[in-house]
């Protein structure tokens, strides 16, 4: 029975067929348009489009985010709109020129590649994918990165696992596989080789990302006790993980995960940081939607994972956006006035994570914001033009920064290590690379005792994957470390709870 009707949709002036009754957000996401940080639940207000034609009436959810004036101008939230007939819509092309980190630390290690001709290292980040291509001499031939296309199913891993439960698991797998194939083929072309000549790859990522890649059931990871059935640390073939650009039998190494939320990405970052071998008391942290952190001291390795939420990626912040053109990425004060830098140097369209941290630090400095997080001039502390922060934005920052800070303090306390003992703090991940460390300390995102011990690593997950690719012995070391690691659980942890409250203050 096919009573499905097709209507005509004009998207940015180009015509596409669209099923009658379709959700506008799903339809646009399918074409690669728009951002859906909340996974299309009408909760974040980020999928704004301008639309006209036969569409459902504005819903209550949309009215929460859109003013009368917005609605009058045809602004809608795509994920809340049902297609009732022919329509036209204009929408920003996804991504723009996003800033993504692909460089990153690569300490020297004995060259003993796990491949014969060419090898690739890939990091599947929840937000971004990054890859590198090497030859046997250890020469970096090409690198590439792109946004994780799975983002149309939501910004955080829980939203995506929900989509997997709603039978989109296959789609999640093919989205990431296609994207990896795209990067591998692109890099091969750039290096003048055929992708089938790449005979081995190391693919790192968090536990959920590796599970999606391998179509491993993620249901147990969606609720307490968050038991991971598969922790990887294994070789598979390219065919098994559906990578078509490589030869069917190319070896793909998936590094080990320590638990449901302490994944292979932080384990390979640990390889890159070298803190376990340094003999130092050191902490490695990857600040993202989820903040993973590892403490190394005298052979002891302890790790934890804290949930910050996507505030530093722009979601849940009224003027928030990713680190792409138009984003305010730096804020400072001159004679008590806020000044800022905008990516691309045009007019500001919003504020990205690094700009948000700077802005909050500046508001504290100019005393527009007090230590409890109370904003003198709500609704808006203006950064520049229309880009401003509201009281709600500040509250979201408090929840997020405190989760990271309290997570670190709890990890230290539970391990009997005082913050003063820590000799080095390695900050990994894209956000960490753009972060002004002084401001991060000023707003209490990082403990003040560690502020002058910071080492910025860039994409250390990818760095570590590259090292394992080029130096076979490191694979065993990574696996051994992962077995030895002991995890600190922050849920139902009284130390965390009290730190979390304390660190919510500025």
């Amino acid at each position, binding site marked *: 029975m096919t009573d499905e009707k097709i209507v005509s949709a004009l998207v940015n002036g180009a015509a596409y067929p669209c099923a009658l009754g379709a959700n506008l957000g799903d339809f646009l996401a399918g074409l690669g348009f728009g951002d859906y940080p909340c996974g299309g639940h009408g909760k974040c207000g980020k999928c704004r489009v301008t639309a006209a034609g036969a569409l459902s009436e504005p819903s209550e959810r949309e009215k929460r985010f859109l003013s009368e004036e917005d609605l009058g101008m045809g602004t809608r939230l795509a994920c809340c709109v049902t297609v009732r007939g022919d329509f036209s819509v204009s929408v920003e092309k996804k991504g723009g020129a996003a800033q993504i980190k692909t460089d990153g630390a690569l300490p020297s290690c004995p060259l003993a590649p796990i491949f014969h001709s060419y090898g690739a290292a890939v990091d599947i980040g929840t937000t971004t994918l990054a890859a590198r291509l090497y030859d046997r001499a250890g020469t970096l031939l090409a690198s590439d990165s792109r946004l994780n296309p799975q983002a149309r199913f939501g910004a955080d891993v*829980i939203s995506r696992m929900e989509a997997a*439960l709603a039978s989109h698991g296959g789609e999640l797998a093919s989205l990431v596989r296609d994207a990896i194939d795209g990067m591998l083929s692109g890099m091969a072309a750039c290096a003048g080789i055929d992708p089938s000549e790449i005979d081995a790859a190391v693919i790192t990522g968090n536990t959920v990302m590796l599970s999606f890649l391998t179509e491993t059931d993620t249901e147990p990871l969606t609720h307490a006790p968050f038991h991971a059935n598969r922790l990887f640390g294994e070789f598979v073939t390219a065919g098994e993980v559906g990578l078509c650009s490589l030869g069917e039998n190319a070896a793909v190494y998936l590094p080990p995960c320590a638990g449901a939320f302490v994944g292979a990405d932080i384990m390979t970052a640990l390889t890159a940081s070298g803190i376990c071998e340094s003999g130092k008391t050191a902490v490695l942290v990857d600040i993202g939607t989820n903040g993973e952190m590892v403490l190394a001291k005298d052979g002891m390795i302890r790790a934890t994972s804290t949930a910050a939420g996507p505030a530093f990626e722009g979601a849940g912040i009224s003027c928030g956006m990713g680190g792409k053109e138009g984003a305010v990425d730096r804020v400072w004060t001159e004679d008590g006035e806020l000044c800022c830098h905008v990516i691309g140097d045009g007019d500001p369209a919003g504020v990205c994570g690094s700009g948000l941290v700077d802005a909050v630090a500046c508001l504290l400095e100019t005393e527009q914001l007090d230590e*409890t997080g109370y904003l003198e001039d709500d609704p808006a502390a203006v950064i520049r033009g229309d880009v401003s922060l509201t009281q709600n934005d500040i509250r979201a920052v408090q929840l997020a920064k405190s989760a990271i800070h309290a997570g670190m303090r709890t990890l230290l306390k539970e391990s009997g290590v005082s913050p003063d003992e820590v000799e080095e703090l390695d900050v990994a991940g894209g956000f960490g690379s753009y972060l002004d460390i002084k401001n991060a300390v000023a707003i209490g995102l990082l403990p003040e005792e560690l502020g002058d011990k910071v080492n910025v690593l860039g994409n250390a997950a990818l760095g570590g994957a590259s090292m394992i690719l080029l130096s076979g012995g490191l694979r065993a070391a990574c696996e051994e470390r992962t077995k030895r690691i002991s995890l600190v659980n922050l849920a139902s942890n009284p130390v965390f*709870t009290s730190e979390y*409250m304390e660190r919510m203050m500025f």
Partner: protein
Amino acid sequence: MSTELLNEISENLQRGKAKVVKELVQKAVDEGLDPDVILREGLLSGMDVIGEKFKANEVYVPEVLIAARAMNMGVGVLKPLLAEAGVKAAGKVCIGTVQGDLHDIGKNLVKLMLEGKGLEVVDLGTDVSPDTFVQTAIDQNCQIIACSALLTTTMGVMEEVVKKAEAAGIRDKVKIMVGGAPVDDAFCKKIGADAYTPDAASAADKAVEFCLELAGKSA
């Protein structure tokens, strides 16, 4: 004189001065003030002010927690006296974070606000099964079941709570309230729960309203 002392209690409570609150409550008791009056006009009225400020986003989670800590210190002094005088709570609520979820900060805040309205609260903790919610409501004669969820994957458990309550035949006696960041009014209606509120202070207001309504019904 006595109103001055009660105001002092309320103000110190708002500033989270737990030790001072405790001392002042003891002083009020020693001066012969009615414990019920100290509770309502000193402690609970102070908590009310904090609740309103929290609703208006003027104060945040930590301030509410320290104020509540101060309130509990004061209530500690009064508890035996209130029991002696036979003062009963206006209603009883069982609260918990649903099965599969361990987030409890929001739930604890709701609990404190409920106590701040003079309601009795049975705290079931986290990872609470639908059966436990319903059985507790029956066993302990609760007028309200309050469920909290912070994960989009666990909010579905709330629907099970509503179904279990229906099956147990207590839906006319027990109101079900739902909340937590991913929950909204539409979801509450969809699963057939009785009320959703976006924050802990309005949750407590709503709970009081329900208790009055149910008391009116049974009278």
